[in-house]
C-alpha cells in the first residue's frame, strides 16, 4: 500500500507489482531495515498529500525518513524502461523545459504551503 501511495504521489498512478515487491523487499534489507520505521499507514489512511508533506519535511530536515522512502521508490522506478522518458530528455525542448520548470516552481510553492499545514495537522516535527 505504501509503495502505491508514494508512486501515485510521484507519477500519478499505482506502482507496478514488480516495484511493489521490490519496495517491500528493500524495506526488509539492511540498511533500510535498520532505519527507524515511520508509520505512513496513519497518514495514508487519512488521505494526506504525501508529496506536499515530503517537501515540507525535507525543507526543515534534509535527511528524513519520508524523503528516504520517496528516494528508494524513485530508484526502483527510474531503472524501468517505461519510466525512461520521465527522467531523460532525449530531444532539445528548451521553451518546454523552461515552461515546465516554471509551472513546477509554482506548484512546489503551493505544495510547500500545504505540506507545512499538514505537518501541523498531523503533528509532524
Amino acid at each position, binding site marked *: 500500500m505504501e509503495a502505491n501511495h508514494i508512486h501515485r*504521489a*510521484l*507519477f500519478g498512478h499505482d506502482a507496478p507489482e514488480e516495484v511493489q515487491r*521490490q519496495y517491500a523487499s*528493500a524495506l526488509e*534489507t539492511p*540498511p*533500510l531495515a535498520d*532505519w527507524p520505521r515511520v508509520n505512513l499507514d496513519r497518514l495514508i489512511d487519512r488521505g494526506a498529500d504525501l*508529496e*506536499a508533506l*515530503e*517537501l515540507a519535511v*525535507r525543507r526543515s530536515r534534509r535527511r528524513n525518513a519520508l*524523503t*528516504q522512502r*520517496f*528516494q*528508494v521508490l*524513485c*530508484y*526502483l522506478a*527510474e*531503472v*524501468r*524502461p517505461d519510466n*525512461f522518458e*520521465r*527522467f*531523460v*530528455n*532525449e*530531444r*532539445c*525542448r*528548451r*521553451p*518546454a*523545459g*523552461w515552461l*515546465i*520548470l516554471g509551472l*513546477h*516552481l509554482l*506548484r*512546489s510553492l503551493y*505544495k*510547500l504551503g500545504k505540506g507545512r499545514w499538514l505537518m501541523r495537522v498531523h503533528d509532524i516535527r
Partner: protein
Amino acid sequence: MTSAEIIIVGAGPSGTFAAYQLRGRGPLVLDVGYRAQESALDGNFYELRKTSSAGGPDLFAELIGPGFESLHNVFHASLGPRLKGPRMRFVTRGAAELSPVVAQNFDALMSFAAGGMANAWGAGLYRFTADDLAGYPISVLDLEPYYDAITAKVGISGADDDLSRFFGSARGLLPPVALGASGRAVLRRYTQRRKSLNRRGLYIGLPRLAVLTRDHDGRRAYRYDTLECFRPNDPAVYTPTYTLDELVRRGEILYERGVLVERYTESSAGISVLARSCATGERRTFHCRRLILAAGALNTAKIVLRSNDDHVTRLPLLDSNRSSIPLVDPWGIGGALDRSVYSAAMLRAVYAGEHGPGLTHMAVYASVGTLCSDYLFDFPFSARGNIAAAKYLTPALLLVQLSYPDAPTLTNHVRLLPDDRLELRYTSKPASPLESHVLGLFRELGYLGALGLCRRLTPGNSCRYAGALPMTTTPVGPYQTDRDGLLSRTHGVYVADAANFTVLPSNSHSFTMMANAMRIADHVGRTLG
C-alpha cells in the same frame, strides 16, 4: 615457507607497476585481490535503459543490485558514484573487516581488490611538474622515463593545450576523448574569453585519461557506452588489473591471491613476511631479500607500525580535500542530454591566480552516466517537480570539483591502536575564498551558481591519501624513507606507494604514484645486481 628474491605487497597502481618494472626477475606479489563480477551490460547506458526488455540484461540486478547496493547513499553519504554500483562494490569489499579504522572527521576508503581503487578511478593521469614536486627529494627528471614508459604501456588520451604547462609533457598521447555538447560549450566560451580568464588565473583544457581512443596493446578503443558507474573492466578504460593479469599470464611474476600481509621482520638472513589467508585465517610466512610495500598509503603505514609494535607514534596523514560547486547553464535547460560521453571526466581546469593556495586543479563534470535518483532530492521542488528538474535541468548541470593541496600538520595523523585498528584524525580546513572566486570566473563564462550550494566534501572522500612515511634526503627516525623508498633503519624494506609522498599537491597523484613505484622498483632491482 615460500621464498622469493623480491616480494611486493599489494596490486594496486603502485604494486602493479613495481611488478611491471621487475617483470624479468619474477617478483612475488601478495594481494587480497578481490575481483569484479561479470556485468551483463553491453551497449549504451541510456539505450539499455530505454529499450531493455525480456531477454535483455536485468537492469534491477545491474543498476540497483540484489542487495539494493545503489541505494547506499540514501542512508550513508560516503561512496562516490563509481563505487556504489552493484558490480563496483568489489572495490571496497571487505575493507571494514580487513582494516578496521576509528576515524574522526575522515571517511576512510580502502580497497583490497586486485587493481585497488583504480578500478573505480576517473582514469585521469597527470604528470607532476616541478611546482608539484616542491619539497620532494626527487625531480621531474627522475620520474620522466617512467611517465613515458607508462604512457606507452597504458595508452593515455589527451591534447597539448592550455593545460600542458600544468600537466607536463604531452609526448605519446593518443587523440583526446570526444566531448559532449556541454563540454564543447564550456571550451567554446573559454576560448572566446581566454585572455581575460588567463589573466585572472583560470585555464581550462582537456583531461588526460587512461581511456583508449584507438585500439592499443590488445585492448579496444572506448565505445562511449557511458557505463563507467556500473560496469567494471571496460577494456578501453585502463585499470592495473590488465597489466597484472598479463604479467601473470606470461609467467613474468608470481601472484598469490587471498593473502593479507600483516607484518614483516628483518634479520641478517633476510626478511620474513607474515600474512594471513583471507579464506581460512591460516598464518603463512614468506621469505625474501627485498620487500616492496605498496598496499595503499594507509595499509602500508599499518604494516610498518605493526611490524615495529608501535601503538604510540602518530604518522602524518595527507588528504586531498575537495569541494564541489554545482553550476547551471541557462542555455542548456531543456537541452538534449549527452548520452554518449565518457562520464568519469569531462574537462580539467587549473586556477593559478592569487586567491588560491598555490596551483589548484579542478575537474569539471557533467551529470551523465548515473541515475538521477542519486541527486533528485537535492533539487528544491516537490518530488514530482524534482523528476521534471532531473529531466530538463540535468543537461544544463556542471559540477566543478576543486582539489586542495595538503602538507603535514600536527593535528592530522594515523596511529595504530593496541586493538589493531587504525586511528585516523583529520581537522578540516576553513572554507577557501577560492570557491567564491572560481564561481565568479565561471559566471563570466555564463554559468549560474551560488556559493551557498558549494559543498565541502568530508575529508577522506577523495581517496587520495599520502604522506605517512615520507621520502626525505636524510631520513630521521624509523618512519621516513630515503629518496629511493628505503625505509629508515631497514636494509631491504621499501615503500613504493603514496605513503612516501612528502606533500600532496592539488594535481592528481595517481600517475606519479605509478611512476615513482617503477622508479623505486628499478632501484631495488639494481641493489640485487
